[in-house]
Structures are given as structure tokens and as C-alpha cells.
């Protein structure tokens, strides 16, 4: 307090120091908010011309994205349209396809892996696997992209796509190793570690007494895992799905490397060929096109894509908060 011995009066009192620290930290926190606000405002302002020129049809199908970008680069509008004419449906569809396929595959694999880690793995195996999973979660996406572009995509092109398959759709789209399947599989591997880590953590925090209770009632181990452990951990697994979806949605570099270059709305009616059709998700499109900022129209369109990604990220963040609420009932924090 401000009283105290005279020789201490020279120093600032703890209360003042506290208040100063509080103000400094408060200012830092507010500046983060201001930065986020400025960023949102910039994106919104720059994106607005693209949205206002196209209306809600921005999100719809119509024409070819490459042709539309070329027109903007050249500064020559497509006949009968404004320079900002843009239809993002192939990009949105590509994002949905890649994200949903990757998250579903990763959900199945990660749940099984988490069950193994928490219920079956002997302690030495667990001691090795847990750090490895954490390490994998930290691998930068560009490394996955590099492996994809130099090894996996050429292999897929050479071995999995036959000439007759290429011929069957030759007048619609060209098939090569950069396709939906390659992108979705690499993305699955990318988001898997974080899902395994979160699911395993949730499974291991299920109170042992609940499982023991189940066992005491004569329920076998698998049924206990299925009915007690997994059911309890369900909200945590849902949270993991949300987090993985956010990562998948925002992933740009890797996807631009292994799926970019051809914005095409892959058609599930094409059967197996569908998996080999190219896609170009929203984030990858920004990477692919950001070089063309010299012309205003390209910049506006790219900012519009960024705005869509930001809004989806905000939604996911809210969803992540919402799915965690039921966990609090059990006193399990994630």
C-alpha cells in the first residue's frame, strides 16, 4: 500500500505498479481487437465491389472461373458482363468436397486411433506414439504439399488414372494427379494428428469409475468403449471435428500445390472418375491468383474470397464453442 517506511516511498507503490501493468496489458489486448477490426474492415471494404456487382449470384454457378480471372487480368470484361463478373460455385463446391471427405476419413481413423491409444496400447507404445502424434500435428503444410506434388500426384497420374478414363471425360475436363482424391487424402493426413490428440485426451479423461461400473455390470470391453467412453467423449470429438474443419477450410498452400490450377465443379455422378476430377478450393484460389493484384478487379475478387473464408471461420469458431458446452456438465474441460 501507499503507506510504509519513508525509505520505500521513493519506489512506486505496489498498487500503482499493479494499475500500470493492468493498463499496459489492457492496452495490448485492446490493440489486438483494433487490429482484428481493421483487418475485417479492410477485407470488407475491398471485397464489397465484387459482392455488389454480382449480388447473391456470386455464390452460384455460371461460366468458368479461369476465364473470369483472365478477363480481370487483361482488363477486358467478358461480353455482356461487368469486369467484376464472378461465379464462385466451383470453388465453394471444391472446398466443401475436400473438407468433408477429409474430415469424415480423419474422424473414422482418429477415433479408432484414439481408442487404441487410450484403451489398448501398452505403456511403452503409448509413450512413443503420443509425442509422434504431437510432432505430426506441427508439420508445416507446405511440406505435405511438396511431398504431394513431387511424389504422390505423379504416382496417382501414372498408376491410377487410365487413358480410357481420361478419354471418357476429355471434352469436359482433363484428369491428372492433381485431383480431388490426392488433395483430400493429404488433407486427411494433415488434420489427423490434431483429431487423434483431442479425442485421446477426451477418452482418457472419462472417469475410470464409469467404465469400471460398466464392466461390473458384465458389459464387455468393446461395448463399454462404445456405450460409455465414446458417448461421454462425444462433445470433445465434435470439438475436434470443428477444429479440424477449420484447419481444412483454411488450408491453402498444400491445396494450391496438389489441387490448384483448375477450378472445376467435380461431379459425383461421374462415378469413380469423380475422385480423379480436379478441384480448386477457396484458399488455394487466393494462392493461385494473388499475383494479379495490379488490376483492381482481381484484388476485389480475391478479397471477396477472403471474406467468405473469414465468415466461415467465425461460424466454425462459434460452433466450436457451442459443442463444448455439454462437456461442462461432466466437468470435463477440453
Amino acid at each position: 500500500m501507499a503507506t510504509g517506511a519513508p525509505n520505500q516511498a521513493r519506489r512506486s507503490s505496489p498498487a500503482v505498479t499493479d494499475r500500470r501493468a493492468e493498463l499496459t496489458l489492457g492496452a495490448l489486448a485492446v490493440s489486438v481487437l483494433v487490429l482484428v477490426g481493421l483487418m475485417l474492415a479492410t477485407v470488407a471494404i475491398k471485397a464489397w465491389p465484387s459482392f455488389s456487382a454480382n449480388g447473391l449470384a456470386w455464390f452460384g454457378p455460371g461460366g468458368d472461373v479461369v476465364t473470369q480471372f483472365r478477363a480481370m487480368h487483361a482488363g477486358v470484361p467478358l461480353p455482356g458482363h461487368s469486369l467484376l463478373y464472378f461465379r464462385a460455385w466451383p470453388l465453394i463446391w471444391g472446398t466443401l468436397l475436400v473438407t468433408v471427405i477429409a474430415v469424415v476419413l480423419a474422424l473414422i481413423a482418429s477415433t479408432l486411433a484414439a481408442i487404441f491409444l487410450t484403451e489398448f496400447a501398452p505403456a511403452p507404445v503409448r509413450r512413443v506414439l503420443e509425442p509422434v502424434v504431437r510432432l505430426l500435428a506441427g508439420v508445416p503444410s507446405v511440406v505435405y504439399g511438396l511431398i504431394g506434388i513431387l511424389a504422390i500426384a505423379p504416382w496417382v497420374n501414372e498408376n491410377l488414372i487410365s487413358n480410357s478414363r481420361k478419354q471418357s471425360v476429355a471434352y469436359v475436363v482433363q484428369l491428372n494427379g492433381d485431383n480431388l482424391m490426392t488433395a483430400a487424402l493429404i488433407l486427411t493426413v494433415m488434420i489427423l494428428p490434431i483429431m487423434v490428440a483431442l479425442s485421446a485426451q477426451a477418452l482418457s479423461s472419462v472417469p475410470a469409475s464409469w467404465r469400471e461400473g460398466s464392466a461390473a455390470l458384465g458389459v464387455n470391453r468393446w461395448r463399454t468403449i462404445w456405450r460409455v467412453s465414446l458417448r461421454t467423449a462425444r462433445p470433445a470429438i465434435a470439438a475436434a471435428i470443428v477444429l479440424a474443419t477449420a484447419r481444412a477450410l483454411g488450408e491453402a498452400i498444400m491445396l494450391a500445390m496438389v489441387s490448384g490450377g483448375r477450378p472445376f465443379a467435380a461431379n459425383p455422378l461421374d462415378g469413380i472418375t469423380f475422385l480423379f476430377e480436379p478441384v480448386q478450393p477457396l484458399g488455394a484460389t487466393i494462392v493461385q491468383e494473388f499475383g494479379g493484384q495490379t488490376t483492381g478487379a482481381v484484388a476485389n475478387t480475391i478479397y471477396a474470397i477472403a471474406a467468405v473464408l473469414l465468415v466461415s471461420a467465425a461460424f466454425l469458431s462459434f460452433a466450436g464453442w457451442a459443442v463444448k458446452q455439454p462437456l461442462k456438465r461432466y466437468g470435463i474441460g477440453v
Partner: protein
Amino acid sequence: MRAHRTLMLSLIATIALAAPASAVARPLIIGGSTSVLPLAQKLATAYHRAFPKIPSPKVGGGQSDVGISGAASGRFDIGDSSRDPIRGVDPTGLVFTKIARDGVCVITNPQNPLSNLSAENVEGIFTGRIRDWSQVPGARVSGPIDLFDRDGASGTQDAFQHIFLGETLKISPSATAETSNGLEQNAISSDKQAIGFVSFAYTSGVNAVGYQGIPCTLRNAKSGQYGGVRNFWMVTKGVPKGEAAKFLAWVTKPGNQTVRSIVNSQWIAIH
């Protein structure tokens, strides 16, 4: 108090350490076209060797549009562009300095060592009218053609469009667009049914196809027989000033043998 003193001391130390670095001239920052990149790197190294007191310029890649917009925004002191200026699209107030000329080759996989394509064949393949190698005379592979294009910000794409397709034809939108010469080269070297186009300096590991009976070689490009030749530019915001002016004056000095021999190793010298 002690914490404060530590903080002050470390601040002073940081400033003291940083001071000598800022006393020396900042290196020039050059970036843009991946076609110009190998030439700009060689020129930067030779420039530093000729003037050891001037730090070696830092050279990066991107695309021609990145070079042009980067020069305009001040991100680069000098932007590289492998396409000619486009009035109405490029930011105003930029000065384009021509530094060399370069050949653009159509390339295929080494397993498909196509030696020549007629103008009609190139048009047919790249506009998507010809979609199968069986329709291309001289092809050693069969099956659908995997067409590779560059993205819209690429100077090579712009040059290919103007030189090989003219003003009315467009590259088939079903082509896969790569974002750099290196990625284009990589895509074609790993796909035996592929065809695309790159700057002459990126033709190792792939098969350079002749055009209208003239092989795509440096000699033919220099003699003017090979038609697929375009300009390399270095772009500055306004008339070049200071270090950028010094560098550009050295690069464009008539009869500068160092520059001439570097440029002539893979490109066409013009100064």
C-alpha cells in the same frame, strides 16, 4: 527496478548491434517474374563481384504481375516482368527498362520427344481442338493430351498467348494452370502425356519442341529464326533513382562484356 535495468540494457544492446547493419547501404530488392529470376540472380551476383562494396541485390520470384505491382507498391526496388507493359492494366507512373530477350519453348515429356509442331498443331493443341496424341504427327505416346497452362499473372503466359496464338485464340480453359516456370517444368517432366510452355532457361529435363520447323534452341532464337521470342523488363516506380539506377545503368551499359556473356549464356543480349 532490476527488471527495468535489464530491459534498458538489452534495448541498448539491440540498438548497438543493429546500428552497424543500418550504416551499410541496404541491398536492392528485386522480385517478380520467374522467367527473369535466373537471369536476375546471375546479374546480381556478378554486380556484387564487380562492385564488392555494394551489397549483393536480393532477388526473389513471383510472377510478372507480382513484379509490376511490387514495383508500384514499393515492395521491390526493381520489379521483374517477362511481359510487355499493358496500358490501362498496369499501375501508372512505372518505367519499364528492357534488359534482354528470351525464348519461349513448347515442352513435352522426354518420353515423348516430339521434334516439331506446326503453327496449326500448336493452335489446335493449346485451344483444345486436338485432345489426343494420336492426332499429333510425330508424337511417341498415345492417349489424351495433358495440357498445362500458366496462371493469368504470368508473363510467359502473356507472351505465349501473343506469339503462338495471336489476339483472338485463347488457351483451352480445361488446361491445368501452374504458378511458376519451375512448377510447369516439374509437372511436365513427371507426366508423359503432358505439353506446356516455359522460358528457355527451364528446358532441362524436358523436351523442347521446335516451332514451324525451327528447333527451340538458343542459337535459333538469337539468329531470329525461331519466332517464340519476347522481352525481359525491369520495372521501377518512376525513373530509376539511387542504387536501382546504378544497377540498371550497369545492366544496360552498351558493350558491358560481363553482362553480355551472362545474358548470352541462356538469353539474348540486347545492349
